[in-house]
């Protein structure tokens, strides 16, 4: 039995359809990340699971029980919000134990659970402080603590790291991942940051316009995307997309060259296709097989690696990622190449051709 199951779930706000029939089963103990651009419905979907938004159509099940009409407080879930949503007038200790106390748990039990959560999150020295006396990272840890004490059936995270600075975000990312391993709990995590999705998820669900574009293990989505949207969304720096033309001999014309793609079925000739190539799949020189010429516009040196911005002879822009430091002359042309097997081919509707 799945921990959480959605069956053709729909949501409309007035005439605007936000979620258009989502089917999804999240297994017990799984770390599932909803990812997608702004307005794709990922937060709405999470809020529907929490019970904070009504379901327009379809059913939501938690551990086999249909919860469409069940109040949020009776769903035995815990939620962590982007703005932390702590009670500002209560101490850390009170913030974490308040919900339990209000639901009639004995004081000693509340204290025990708060102490356990505080220990797990290293919050003991902060227990007597109020949220205004804490840093952003500490506040978010308190919010997570408040979730942990509930011993919920699942944790719901709504972009919990978006308010933190870059360094703290990396640190909290690691902490939440560790926590997941430690608790073995079911977690659903909403983010627009594909790096968070890639690094934390057991499974990524990519949403666009209220439908699931693709779901699967992060590496599967990265290597084997079903469509150009997922291919472009997952991965940083982003995948390069070039216009290509199918030729009668089965090769694809790309800028000044042509190559034989690794496709099991051959699309009709003269068909326009999109060729997707990840920045790290290019090599400098012609060794990889399919040779192109790149004119360099800019090189961003990050120290350990560098991102080359440039153009093909067709004028199409591309990014190339290389190890190490490089200072090639701007405006110069360099030969680059890629292996035909690395090229992903998409049809005119954006769907992957395999």
């Amino acid at each position, binding site marked *: 039995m799945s921990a959480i199951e959605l069956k053709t779930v729909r949501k409309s706000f007035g005439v605007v359809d936000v979620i258009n029939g989502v089917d999804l089963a999240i297994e017990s103990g799984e770390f599932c990340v909803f990812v997608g651009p702004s307005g794709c419905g990922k937060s709405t979907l999470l809020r529907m699971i929490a*019970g904070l938004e009504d379901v327009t159509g379809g059913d939501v099940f938690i551990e086999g029980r249909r919860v469409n009409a069940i109040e949020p407080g009776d769903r035995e879930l815990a939620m962590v919000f982007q703005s932390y949503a702590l*009670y*500002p007038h209560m101490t850390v200790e009170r913030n974490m134990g*308040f*919900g339990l106390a209000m639901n009639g748990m004995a004081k000693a039990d509340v204290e025990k659970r708060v102490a356990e959560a505080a220990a797990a999150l290293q919050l003991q020295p902060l227990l007597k402080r109020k949220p205004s006396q804490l840093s952003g990272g500490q506040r978010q840890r308190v919010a997570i603590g408040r979730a942990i004490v509930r011993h919920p059936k699942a944790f*719901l995270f709504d972009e919990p790291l978006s308010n933190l600075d870059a360094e703290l975000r990396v640190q909290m990312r690691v902490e939440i991942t560790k926590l997941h391993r430690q608790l073995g709990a079911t977690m659903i995590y909403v983010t627009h940051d594909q790096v968070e999705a890639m690094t934390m998820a057991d499974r990524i669900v990519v949403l666009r316009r209220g439908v699931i574009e693709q779901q699967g293990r992060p590496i599967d989505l990265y290597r084997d995307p079903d469509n150009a949207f997922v291919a472009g969304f997952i991965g940083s720096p982003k995948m390069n997309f070039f216009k290509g033309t199918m030729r009668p001999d089965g090769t694809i014309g790309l800028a000044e060259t042509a190559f034989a793609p690794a496709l099991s079925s051959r699309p009709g000739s003269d068909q326009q296709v999109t060729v997707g190539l990840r920045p790290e799949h290019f090599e400098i020189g012609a060794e990889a097989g399919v040779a192109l010429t790149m004119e360099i516009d800019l090189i961003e040196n990050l120290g350990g690696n560098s991102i080359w911005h440039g153009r093909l002879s067709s004028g199409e822009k591309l990014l190339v990622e290389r190890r190490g430091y490089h200072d090639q002359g701007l405006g110069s042309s360099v030969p680059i190449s890629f292996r035909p097997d690395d090229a992903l081919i998409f049809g005119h509707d954006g769907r992957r051709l395999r």
Partner: protein
Amino acid sequence: MFTARTGRALALHAVLLPLALIWLFPLWTMFVFATLPDDGIFGAGIELLPSTAFADNFANLQHDTDFIRAMSISIGVASVYTLISVALTSMAGWALARYRFVGRTAVIGIIFGTITLPYFVVVIPQFIMVARDFNMANSWFALIVPPLFNSLGVLFMRQSFTMLPEEVFDAARVEGIGEWRTFFHIALPMTRPTLAALSIILFLHSWNNYLWPLLVNSRPEMMTAPVALGSLIGLTKVSWGGIMVGAVVLTAPMLVLFVALQRHFIAGISAGAVK
């Protein structure tokens, strides 16, 4: 060192100081007159320094009106009024801020509309209702309850609740905290500055209310302090010193209350002005 900044500060204070003096002058003369014997008040020229007749004036006042009793009644009525009114207005404000229901906009519009009605337009029909229809003149109920329905307070609280972050209440819902508890334990404490400001305004409103207690009550033992003071004017011999003592005694608690809660008051009034 004289800089442009100190120059600006001096210029500012040169304007502020006379303004402050103009504002303080009536308060000061009220205090001075309260300490003068009656012939001193109407003597040639204006006395600017206090004298020693405060106790005598107070004794006259107490003799004419039983002022201590009137003060106790004022304090009691204003306290009960403030307590009940804060409770009612905050609950109504919470309902209008948080719940979506059919006719909500209309309700808010009507409440807003009543603010524009002058008090004197309302007071006569209100009096007729209480005195004639309910036959409740000269009762505590009549003294306290009719002024309770305070549209300004409702909108004040509604505004304050609207500005609270929605996610805090989402968090409370997910934690299974009921609506009443959310209101009492989360929403009310989060609006403490507004509650303090509103309490002062409501207390002041009741404390200074002259017309309604005058209209609805004619029993001397239920007279509030402003009405007691007003009753002195009609006597054959008007004790102005006594009236001034009464005015000082009426003003003093308000000043203390304001100074004590000034921080909250300013915070409450200016809440939302800056994010």
